[in-house]
């Protein structure tokens, strides 16, 4: 649930990057943090293990400027993707307004993507939210690996596995080079803001 302050005319929007472990969620936020310094209100917070895996979440507040007189403050979060951390993943999803599902396009990660998406569905249900209703964008990450001869799932397979029923906007991306990272963010922000506006009317 976004939080709207009518006195100061501020809307806070919570966007969560979700997906299997090592899929590139943290890398997405790191790229945004580097590229949009001016719009970032403070330091990125990363609660991680020594091996650089997300332990609880990454957090990055991002200032969108004004829409219809309201100051839009975007709060970007990532969840920890490792299977054992589902309890913390659920905590991070509390009050979410929009989700980017970061799938790992590497061929050998095919099953993990599907399992992670199914669990997202269950986790949202525990908050009485529906994966079919919440603003969601699919990001097929690591497409740069093709050039390095590493087998990557074709778009048609990813779409069929993950997006055949959801039918949400999708982008191929490479978080490490930044390809489509900003486009993904813009897409989810606009879907989330539209959905909040609808709820307000």
């Amino acid at each position, binding site marked *: 649930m976004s939080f709207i302050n009518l006195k100061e005319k501020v809307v806070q929007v919570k966007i969560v990057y979700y997906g299997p472990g090592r899929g590139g969620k943290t890398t997405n936020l790191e790229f945004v943090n580097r590229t949009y310094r001016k719009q970032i209100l403070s330091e990125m917070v990363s609660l991680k293990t020594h091996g650089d895996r997300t332990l609880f*979440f990454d957090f990055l*507040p991002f200032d969108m400027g004004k829409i219809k007189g309201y100051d839009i403050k975007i709060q970007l979060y990532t969840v920890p993707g490792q299977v054992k951390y589902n309890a913390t993943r659920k*905590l991070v999803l509390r*009050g*979410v307004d929009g989700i980017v599902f970061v799938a790992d396009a590497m061929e050998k990660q095919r099953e993990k993507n599907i399992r992670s998406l199914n669990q997202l569905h269950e986790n949202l249900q525990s908050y009485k939210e529906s994966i079919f209703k919440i603003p969601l964008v699919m990001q097929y990450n690591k497409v740069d690996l093709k050039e390095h001869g590493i087998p990557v799932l074709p778009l048609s397979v990813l779409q069929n596995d993950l997006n055949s029923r959801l039918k949400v906007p999708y982008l191929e991306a490479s978080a490490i080079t930044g390809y489509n990272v900003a486009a993904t963010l813009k897409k989810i922000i606009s879907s989330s803001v539209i959905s909040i506006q609808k709820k307000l009317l």
Partner: protein
Amino acid sequence: MNYGIVSQEQLEQIDVILSDKLIKLGVDCVIIIDMAGNIITAKDNGESKYDVYSFAALAAGNFATVDAMAKLVGEQEFSLLFHKGQESNIHFSKIDDELLLISMFGQDISLGFLRLNVVDVVEKIRKIWEKE
């Protein structure tokens, strides 16, 4: 209250309560957040410069973690959540299922005194929500 939206009037009333009951006593900074990590309001004594957005995200995570641990050991909740440091302390208090009041204060206020005032503030804030 239509949760998620607070009116200007409600916020002004809450800000007055926070100033009168906590900041004037010497509390450095008070923040009300929701369980998703959003800031509802923040008041400080004009000297403390905390990064309240990151703070809110971490505080919501911390509270949620402790709450989940309480449930694992069969407790409804741990009623006292308090972190003590050399110079500053942080006290958490649940307003209702969605809102948390967080106070940051130094060594010149005792925990007991703070808690008494926090209880009072929480009651007053609940009343403001109820009026809706």
